[in-house]
């Protein structure tokens, strides 16, 4: 049985569910019903009224030809409608063993030399593979996500893109045939136009003519996409504009890939054979190598692979050393595998494998190493040796499980984590890392340089990248951890930010709220899940936070060279994020998708942590002013937020000065400066904080360029979402 699964109804068959049971949305079936009705009814009328004459007076091949084309159209239409587009099953719990708020929001992979970001999907609990996107209408991550088509009421992804494309082609041909032969009939019956047959033929011609323009336009659009090897999502969000598309293999190969490649398998609803391999102790063990034996001896019994980074081992040693100094924190509530040292989770293996993630981290505690045993979680203080009191609070706040369920992507927030992580990690590394991360506060340390150092020293240098400067700012912010106490959570409402804002920054710098303006630009692909709950309070009080990486207005159009440098790519990625948000993958997703994401309040923090992550992040933001004060870096003039050059046609947002592309430190500085000017900020201070990768579950990512997308009712009134009708009647919602 082919892998059919209804895209509209919650057809789940066995295996990990691809999504929770869906409610019945009758409105979703209107377009597909209308399309089906028009197609079948018009063609039937054509066959009944026009074809008899045609077969007699023109040729008998005509009806046969039309029948074949019609059947081909219908078959592809059915396949596009009912076939599973390539839905990823939700990741199992064990894949996400590490608390997700400690993990970065993005991971970077290198595809043919081009850095591509993989974003954490908070609903599906994994890092989205390249070209994968989360459809908010279907509530699934779809492989090679193209778009969600309302006319077939299904996502178009890897498995059914070919059918969709062929459907468009064949429908265009079919429409042309019906129109052409109908015209032929009418021209020959000009004197008999009052007959039923003629009237019906003319009606059919009208329908065909009406649909021809959008369908042909959409077909042409997809022909271009196929030739270029892009998906609609990538095209609309402008991912590769001016850059290099790493997924293209040349025009001919792209076309043959679409048309001739093997039918991809289903991931959900598979029949799972019982894997029966007996596992019983005693287990065989490989002989230890000399190096391993040495490592064991040196580590005082702490299991440590010689391949593990110096930082990891040194961090662990630090942990054990500092354990004596401070009282042990309450034990971590969840401890699934107490036996072995925390080995890889899915994310950690990603961490160690890929190049450093240049983009932000939601939140990145100092010891983001996956090998951190559980004590590390409960002893955040120990990780950041050099940092004073601040780190504990920060780290503690990072331990908030409330963030797990939060929408992930706050680019700004991610930076914070980077900073923390970098700080802690560097401390642990000792020789490898930068000492005195606090020096970052002094304003001399460029984020990149910091990142560079940790980069070399620690493989999972996700922390690096642009977050570097943030890390320094975070360190400086450490002193203000108290201010975080008032914050409930990262995604809290205005009150939390306001409470933070109300607190006098110790260094007298700008209030934190300027940095923490919640992002108003939802990420379309994950809109429903990742929208920051704070969207409701994207009031003007909060200046928009452009991610530090926001380039100048022209940057978006400038030839990006794809993602050439990790840092650059991070920045661009952020911008892409914003653009992505604007050009939502699920073009037809209703506003409620966003509202849905916004509405659920953040869960209460776990008992053992005093502060939610937000305070921590906000906390760091407050340091930015301090950092800013100390730095003499000039800030770029406030300028219009670069409008993405994509067809999104977002109206320009309130001026957001794109931070300089230089070291992230400078960027963070520019953020703080901008804070007052911008009214949109990501929650968790995307701008200043930027860096923390940790809080995956929190706010919606604030893509740099997103000017208040405000589709969210609670956000600025009238900001709203602009609906742009694309080719073929697809509606794109672009937040304005």
């Amino acid at each position, binding site marked *: *049985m*082919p892998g059919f699964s209804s895209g509209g109804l919650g057809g789940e068959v066995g*295996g990990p569910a691809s999504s929770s049971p869906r409610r019945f949305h009758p409105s979703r079936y209107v377009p597909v019903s209308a399309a089906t009705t028009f197609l079948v009814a018009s063609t039937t009328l054509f066959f009944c009224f026009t074809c008899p004459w045609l077969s007699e007076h023109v040729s008998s091949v005509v009806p046969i030809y039309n029948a074949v084309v019609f059947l*081909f159209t*219908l*078959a592809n239409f*059915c*396949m596009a409608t009912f076939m599973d587009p390539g839905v990823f*099953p939700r*990741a*199992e719990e*064990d*894949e996400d*063993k590490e608390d997700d708020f400690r993990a970065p929001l993005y991971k970077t*992979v*290198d*595809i*043919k030399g081009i850095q*591509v970001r993989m974003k954490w999907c908070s609903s599906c609990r*994994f890092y989205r*593979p*390249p*070209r994968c996107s989360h459809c908010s209408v279907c509530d699934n991550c779809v492989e090679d996500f193209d778009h969600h088509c309302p006319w077939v009421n299904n996502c178009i992804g890897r498995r059914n893109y070919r059918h969709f494309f*062929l459907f468009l082609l064949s429908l265009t041909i079919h429409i042309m045939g019906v129109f052409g032969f109908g015209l032929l009939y009418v021209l020959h019956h000009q004197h008999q136009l009052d007959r039923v047959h003629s009237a019906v033929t003319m009606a059919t011609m009208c329908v065909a003519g009406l649909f021809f323009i959008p369908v042909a336009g959409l077909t042409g659009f997809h022909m271009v996409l196929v030739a270029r090897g892009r998906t609609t999502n990538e095209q609309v969000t402008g991912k590769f504009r001016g850059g290099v598309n790493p*997924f293209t293999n040349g025009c001919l190969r792209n076309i043959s*890939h679409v048309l*001739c*490649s*093997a*039918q*991809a*398998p289903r*991931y959900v609803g598979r029949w*799972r054979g*019982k*894997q*029966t*391999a*007996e*596992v*019983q*102790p*005693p*287990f*065989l*063990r*490989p002989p230890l190598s000399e190096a*391993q034996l040495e490592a064991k001896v040196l580590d005082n019994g702490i*299991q440590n*692979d010689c*391949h593990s980074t110096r930082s990891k081992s040194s961090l662990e040693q630090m942990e054990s050393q500092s354990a004596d100094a401070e009282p042990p924190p309450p034990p971590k509530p969840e401890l699934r595998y107490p*036996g*072995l040292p925390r*080995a*890889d989770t*899915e994310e950690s*293996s*990603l961490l*160690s*494998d890929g190049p450093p993630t240049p983009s932000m981290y939601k939140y990145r505690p100092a010891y983001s190493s996956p090998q951190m045993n559980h004590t590390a979680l409960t002893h955040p203080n120990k990780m950041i040796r050099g940092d004073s009191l601040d780190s504990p609070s920060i780290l503690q706040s990072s331990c908030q499980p409330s963030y797990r369920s939060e929408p992930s992507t706050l680019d700004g927030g991610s930076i914070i984590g980077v900073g923390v992580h970098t700080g802690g990690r560097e401390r642990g590394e000792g020789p490898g890392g930068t000492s005195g991360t606090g020096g970052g506060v002094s304003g001399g340390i460029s984020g990149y340089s910091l990142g560079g150092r940790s980069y070399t020293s620690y493989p999972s240098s996700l922390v690096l990248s642009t977050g570097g400067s943030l890390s320094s700012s975070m360190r400086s912010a450490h002193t203000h951890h108290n201010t975080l106490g008032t914050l409930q959570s990262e995604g809290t409402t205005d009150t939390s930010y306001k409470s933070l804002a109300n607190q006098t920054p110790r260094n007298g710098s700008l209030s934190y709220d300027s940095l923490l303006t919640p992002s108003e630009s939802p990420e379309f692909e994950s809109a429903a899940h990742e929208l920051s709950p704070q969207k409701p309070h994207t009031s003007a009080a909060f200046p928009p936070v452009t991610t530090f990486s926001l380039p100048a207005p022209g940057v978006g159009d400038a030839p990006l060279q794809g993602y050439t440098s990790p840092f650059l790519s991070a920045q661009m990625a952020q911008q892409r994020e914003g653009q992505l948000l604007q050009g939502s993958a699920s073009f037809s997703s209703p506003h409620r998708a966003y509202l849905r994401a916004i509405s659920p309040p953040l869960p209460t923090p776990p008992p053992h942590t005093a502060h939610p992550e937000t305070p921590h992040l906000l906390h760091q933001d407050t340091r930015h002013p301090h950092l800013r004060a100390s730095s003499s870096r000039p800030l770029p003039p406030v300028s219009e937020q670069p409008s993405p050059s994509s067809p999104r046609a977002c109206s320009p947002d309130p001026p957001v000065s794109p931070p300089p592309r230089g070291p992230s430190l400078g960027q963070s500085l520019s953020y703080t400066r901008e804070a007052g000017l911008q009214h949109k900020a990501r929650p968790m201070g995307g701008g200043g904080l930027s860096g923390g990768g940790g809080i995956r579950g929190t706010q919606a990512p604030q893509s740099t360029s997103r000017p208040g997308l405000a589709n969210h009712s609670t956000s600025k009134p009238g900001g709203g979402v602009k609906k742009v009708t694309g080719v073929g009647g697809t509606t794109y919602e672009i937040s304005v």
Partner: protein
Amino acid sequence: MSTEFHNLQELRHSVSVATKVFIQRDYSQGTTCRFQTKFPSELDSRIERTLLEDTVKTLNSYYAEAEKMGGQSYMEGCLACATAYLIFLCMETRYEKMLKKISGYIQEQNEKIYAPRGLLLTDPIERGMRVIEVSVFEDRGSSGSSHSSSVSSGGISQR
């Protein structure tokens, strides 16, 4: 005799998954299905490098063959078009056949190599081809232990 049997049963029930190691996809050559052959450090003490690397390399070759765009996939596509995709009701695609082969291979590897070492590979298709999940079982030694950990979902099989 009966005591021995009882101990064995205790042993069997006491094996549980200590941790899971994930072998990620290797995207360096695009989105074709490939897994990283880099040996995860956590398994250093559990299995020889070469064994795991061979397994992963073999899997990669199987996947590459499944996704290969050659004559057979083209013919399948044409046939499917010609029959309005009804052929999928009767016929198994090449990819599906390869997946069955891969599943059998993984099963065989588990039985021969990984289970004796307290490891278990999970077919990546169950994880959406994103990771190869290696379940690492606790090594309790031969006598019954006082651990009360529950049997993991990693696929422990009971006879």
